[in-house]
């Protein structure tokens, strides 16, 4: 035991030394000679006028100070002048030196630059001054910092006058070098300010690296040896837990309970990430809108093929309609995420049933079932997409097809047909599985049936009457449509929607595409699963052991081919090949549980699959949604490629080549062991390998979820609750509207309305001032032609509701009402309309985002009708541009009432009195300015 512990101890240390430590010590880096002045406080500019000189004293010029580094900025709109840099030793004092080094830097650049100035270093370390002189005709600013958090030794003087700030300055050696190459120098540095010399450091390092591990190993071995003696004397192991009772309980746990427990954890896991995802993608909004529409138009919408346009596919919409019917947002969206996670994880059920049906023990069957529920593509549970329901539906279809092949009977055929219909309703593309059913039944019947071929055919016809009738019925549209039978074409179009399986690729291109898809499945399921599954499937097809296994292998292979074929016109999204994962995991687990892994097959498959991984391309840069679209590729290319490349010579593709070769070798090694020393792989080693595959899958899933949700998923952004600001503020059952005017009618605003509509279910009407431009969610009522008269009264074909979401940028017309909610993350506010519906003000002449055009006024008309008597005033929120000051003038009724200037980036609230507004019909106010933006206008009586 002590030996095993020692091996484990040493192995980990050696692993750490070989990979990260070696890489850390041998990586070339900049060599810092000294840092006279580092960060001590906030960054400040140090202005250097024409001909001015900045000098820092008490600088130590070391013998390897070959480059001086500092930063400078050319003021906005100018280019940098030439600079002269002089390093000079102190002419007086005990450490005086005649050292002088000079350099000139060309000007002509703009912005901020870090300047590396080559200098001739002194022969011995020298104290002196470091000066920078402005040689040009324009000013320049050195990047300095304040003496705040800390102080540095040099004092900076500008033309002889002490500056309160520092010039961050660093000296470097000319050439980079690794820490390993500079060991002696580092030890010399460390010996400074210490009682002992560099020799002590070497001694200490040696002792820590060599003696400490030896001492710990000796302590371990001593204790383990002592305990071994104690254990030999006492019958019960010292300190080991009495685990038999627990073991019995674990053994007694049924397989379904393991699946249920693991599934529950998986649902919670996915729900956490789903709820923290704060973006939605193309299609998601459509599903959500349609699920709301379904309630309004129930039950007709259930089978409406025209609004939807995706053929039979509609299960996700139905699923989302359930919480949408029961709750408003955000509860409905959270519940939708929950249902999606449950649906996705429920894939474990058909996989478990398949395993059990194939004779696996409950606990063995639980293994592929649980792994199928936590594959890396589970990242789709963070989106309202059809894969969440299509995944289990597909596996139910596969299960039912297999049942029809394994034990013929009309009931099983019926179940299979229903399962295929459900799969099609979950995702139209899964209709490709329909031909798999008769094909698998036919192949299995012919291969495994009894009697002559004719007898087998007769048996097939007799045992699957219902299936053949259904096949004939399904084939009719396919046959009749090309003949011009309208109804048949309509049926086919309605079932398939806009999807097509037409292939415009050559055979080789198709193979390459399949290979690319399949490589993701191989990596996503932990490589070894595919290396075990493929030879097992091939063997079952070639020499079937029994009808059930042959039927299963046939179903799996035909289904996989059909699914791959259907993807020929599809994009690279990995979620399309999600369904292949259980089709690899299940045969692998079956082969393992039955001890039917073939050594030769494992070896060959490992090499071929590794060759596939080498052949296909792996791109680590796929944009912000890469972790969602291609989670396995991102993991493989980034974690195994880029990260490993940090520790190994070469780049990411070299590292991936090594990984593929390593996987091939691992597979070959296992094959050899299986062939020559199978007993070595029994028991715990086998369990460790299974755990390794499971860990590889879980790690990829965790990686995809965290990377996607923390990144593109905006986990840190506004939460679902904040985004559902309308539904949270509007009483339950009350409808709200969206009022599109001004900026709110621009195409740029469309994503914002999409965002608001997606998260807020109670907005079901859209009112457009005059004409509408932007699309409106399906199911929402669109009211165009809304207008207002001279008194500000709103004229609408349909009355505005009490609660209206409005765009907050200055537009054309601002409805009068109390602001109920104004989230900070979108320029939209929810108001409760004052009755009768009127405008607070209307505006004209403003540019986008409330910009006041130079030379022309932005005019605002404030309406008084309906206001209570008394004081009224308007408040203008003014913003100056970042690079320049902004002037403004505000004129009311021809009289100047306010003027001023804002510094760059400054904001100011200017209040303009609106005398006797309630008694007058309206008051006009004009604002003029240069570079001025009016961020908002509000009215109040609190003047």
């Amino acid at each position, binding site marked *: *035991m002590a030996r*095993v*512990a020692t091996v*484990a*101890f040493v192995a*980990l240390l050696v692993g*750490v030394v070989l990979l990260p430590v070696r890489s*850390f*010590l041998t990586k070339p*880096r900049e060599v*810092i000679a*000294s*840092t006279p002045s*580092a*960060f*001590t406080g906030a960054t400040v500019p140090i202005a250097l006028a024409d001909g001015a000189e900045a000098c820092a004293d008490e600088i*130590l010029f070391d013998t390897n100070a070959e480059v001086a580094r500092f930063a400078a900025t050319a003021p906005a709109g100018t280019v940098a002048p030439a600079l002269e840099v002089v390093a000079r030793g102190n002419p007086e004092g005990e*450490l005086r030196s005649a050292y002088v080094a000079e350099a000139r830097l060309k000007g002509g650049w703009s912005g901020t630059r870090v300047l590396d100035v080559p200098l001739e270093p002194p022969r011995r370390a*020298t*104290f002196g001054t470091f000066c920078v002189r402005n040689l040009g005709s324009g000013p320049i600013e050195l990047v300095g910092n304040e003496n705040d958090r800390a*102080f*540095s*030794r040099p004092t900076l003087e500008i033309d002889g006058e002490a500056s309160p700030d520092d010039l961050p300055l*660093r000296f470097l050696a000319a050439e980079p070098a690794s*820490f390993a190459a*500079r060991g002696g120098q*580092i030890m*010399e*540095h*460390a010996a*400074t*300010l*210490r*009682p*002992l010399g560099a020799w*002590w450091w070497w001694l*200490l390092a040696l002792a*820590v*690296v060599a003696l*400490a*591990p030896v*001492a*710990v190993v*000796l*302590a*371990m071995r*001593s204790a*383990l040896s002592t*305990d071994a003696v104690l254990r030999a004397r006492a019958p019960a*192991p*010292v*300190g*080991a*837990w*009495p*685990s038999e009772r*627990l073991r019995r309980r674990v053994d007694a746990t049924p397989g379904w309970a393991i699946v249920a427990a693991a599934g529950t954890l998986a649902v919670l896991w996915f729900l956490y990430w789903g709820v*923290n995802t704060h973006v939605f993608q193309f299609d998601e909004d459509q599903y959500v809108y349609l699920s709301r529409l379904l309630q309004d138009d129930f039950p007709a919408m259930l089978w409406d093929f025209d609004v939807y346009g995706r053929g039979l596919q509609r299960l996700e919409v139905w699923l989302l309609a359930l919480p949408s019917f029961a709750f408003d947002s955000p509860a409905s969206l959270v519940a939708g995420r929950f249902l999606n996670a449950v649906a996705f994880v429920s894939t474990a059920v058909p996989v478990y049933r398949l395993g059990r049906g194939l004779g696996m023990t409950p606990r063995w069957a639980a293994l592929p079932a649980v792994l199928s529920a936590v594959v890396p593509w589970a990242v789709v549970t963070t989106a309202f997409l059809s894969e969440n329901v299509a995944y289990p539906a597909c596996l139910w279809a596969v299960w039912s097809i297999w049942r029809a092949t394994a034990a013929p009977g009309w009931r099983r055929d019926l179940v299979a047909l229903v399962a295929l219909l459900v799969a099609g309703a979950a995702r139209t593309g899964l209709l490709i599985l329909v031909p798999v059913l008769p094909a698998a039944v036919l192949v299995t019947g012919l291969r495994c049936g009894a009697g002559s071929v004719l007898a087998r055919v007769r048996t097939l016809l007799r045992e699957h009457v219902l299936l053949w009738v259904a096949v004939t019925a399904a084939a009719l549209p396919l046959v009749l449509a090309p003949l011009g039978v309208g109804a048949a074409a309509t049926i086919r179009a309605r079932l398939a929607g806009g999807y097509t399986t037409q292939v415009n690729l050559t055979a080789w291109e198709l193979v390459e595409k399949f290979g690319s898809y399949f490589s993701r499945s191989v990596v996503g399921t932990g490589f070894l699963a595919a290396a075990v599954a493929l030879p097992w499937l091939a063997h079952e097809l070639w020499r079937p052991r029994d009808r059930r296994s042959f039927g299963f292998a046939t179903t799996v292979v035909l289904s996989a081919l059909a699914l791959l074929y259907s993807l020929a016109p599809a994009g690279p999204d990995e979620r399309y090949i999600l369904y292949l994962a259980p089709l690899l995991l299940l045969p692998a687990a079956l082969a393992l549980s039955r001890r039917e892994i073939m050594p030769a097959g494992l070896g060959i498959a490992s090499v071929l699959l590794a060759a596939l991984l080498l052949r296909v391309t792996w791109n680590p840069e796929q944009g912000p949604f890469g972790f969602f679209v291609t989670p396995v590729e991102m993991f493989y290319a980034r974690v195994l490629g880029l*990260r490993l490349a940090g520790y190994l010579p070469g780049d990411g593709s070299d590292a991936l080549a090594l990984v593929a070769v390593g996987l091939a070798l691992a597979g070959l090694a296992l094959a050899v062991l299986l062939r020559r020393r199978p007993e070595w792989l029994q028991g715990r080693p086998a369990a460790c390998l299974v755990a390794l595959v499971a860990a590889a899958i879980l790690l990829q899933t965790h990686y995809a979820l965290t990377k996607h949700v923390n990144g593109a998923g905006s986990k840190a952004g506004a939460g679902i*609750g904040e985004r559902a600001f309308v539904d949270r503020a509007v009483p339950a059952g009350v409808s709200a509207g969206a009022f599109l005017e001004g900026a709110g009618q621009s195409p740029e605003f469309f994503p914002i309305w999409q965002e608001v509509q997606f998260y807020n279910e109670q907005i079901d009407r859209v009112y457009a001032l005059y004409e509408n431009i932007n699309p409106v969610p399906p199911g929402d009522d669109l009211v165009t032609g809304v207008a207002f008269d001279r008194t500000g009264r709103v004229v609408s074909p349909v009355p505005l509701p009490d609660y209206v979401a409005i765009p907050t940028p200055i537009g054309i017309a601002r409805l009068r009402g109390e602001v109920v909610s104004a989230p900070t993350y979108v320029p939209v506010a929810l108001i409760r309309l004052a009755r009768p519906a009127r405008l607070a003000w209307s505006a004209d002449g403003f540019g986008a985002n409330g910009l006041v055009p130079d030379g022309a006024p932005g005019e605002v008309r404030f309406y008084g009708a309906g206001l209570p008597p008394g004081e009224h005033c308007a408040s203008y929120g003014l913003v100056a541009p970042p690079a320049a000051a902004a002037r403004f003038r505000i004129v009311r009724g021809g009289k100047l009432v306010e003027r001023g200037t804002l510094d760059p980036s400054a904001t100011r609230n200017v209040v303009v009195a609106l005398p006797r507004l309630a008694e007058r019909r309206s008051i006009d106010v004009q604002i003029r300015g240069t570079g001025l933006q009016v961020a908002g206008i509000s009215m109040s009586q609190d003047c």
Partner: protein
Amino acid sequence: MLRRIPRPLALLLAVSALLSVAWTFTTAPLQGPDEPAHFNFTQHLAETGAKPTVVGGDHPDSSQVFAALYFLGLDQLAGVSDARPAWSAAEERRFDDLLEDAGEAAEEDGAGPNPLAKNPPLYYAYAALPYYVGSAGSFWDRLILMRLASGLLLLATVAFTWLAAAELFAAAWPRVLATGCVALLPQMTFLSGTINADNLLVAAWTGFTFVALRLVRRGPSARRILALCAFASVSLLTHGRGLPILLPLVVALAVSLLRARPSVGQVVRWLALGLGLLVAAFGAYRLLLAPSTGAYGGEVVLSPTGGLSVSGFLSATWQFYFPRLPLMELRVGPDYGYRQVFIESFFGKFATLEISYPSDVYSLIQLACALGLAGLLAAVAGRWAAVRARWAEVVVLVAVTVSMVGLLHVASYRSLVGSLDPLITGRYLLPVVGVFGLTVAFVISSLRPRAGAVTGALVLSGLLALNVCGLMLTLTRFYG
């Protein structure tokens, strides 16, 4: 006497001593957590016999320390990864000349304001001994000797952990595991290479843990209770964070007395000496040595602050460990919680927290800890009968942990409400490092012997690897 030290303990003491010395020399001068202030406190106490003040005075640092910080770039060095200290002989010579010119007055003028003057003086009195010894040498000799004295406290902590493990485990392997987890913990060995009052606090708490376990296991006696109260007194006289030791003290006494069921007279005889020592120590500090601004500060501010609520505390504490629940308000302050405190700065963040392992390493540690916690649950369930039979020891260990962690959460909550500063760091958990070691040993010894041996070896190997890598990172950060 030496012959009676078990071989594994002797070896682990040797390793921890070696690591402590390595950290002592590797960490650049005055770059330990608040090390200039700790040094100033000690120097002022040693030179003048008086504590510095919290708010008064006009020299936060003595002229010697100020010269070192300013002239040798040690002030700007703290927390700035790309800065380097002075490392040329010319600078060292100039500095020596400066000190010589300044004379002895430069050692005595660091009267304050020193933020650490709020601390009780026991550690600084202890550190004054190596300071005196080092007076024969240079400024740097003193600094090194004071750091090495902190290393002695690490050895005491390691030895106490072994003794505590011996109270719980009959086998030697769990003792090695428990002690190894303390002796090889990078944050622990790093801290022992700096001048910091936490070193004495950690030793006191670990010693207290050992005596408390012995008390509840073997029953009360006047000597044991005196020893227990002595450790508690050391804790109270070392740091404000030593105050929560009163809770496990009460628990340990109550449990041991409940189990022993002595007469009232016996109880009085047992408690008199120990409690007398405790009251005397606390009273002497409170009345004679405490600063005018209050007996303790920092994490133990006794004055009330507005805006606090029980629900707010529970919410903040929940969100420290777990994602926010729907009904909870968003926790104020930065994104700072379990990982930052229990993983990153407990296992190892060095110098002024700017030296850290790569994020992946912390993720691995976090994963290992998660497995360990799951293993703890499984071990408790699997060995429930044994755990129940040792309830007294479990209660003591839980009390020790809860008192310290509870104080830190309360302090953090108070600070967040007032200043958005979470205040706490993993170093503050080190007083319960002994409990950490014992827990690891319990979980691993619950595995089958072979698996336990391999897992334990991996744990010790991992900690040693972290330690060596930490030293490497620190050496190259300061001198590379």
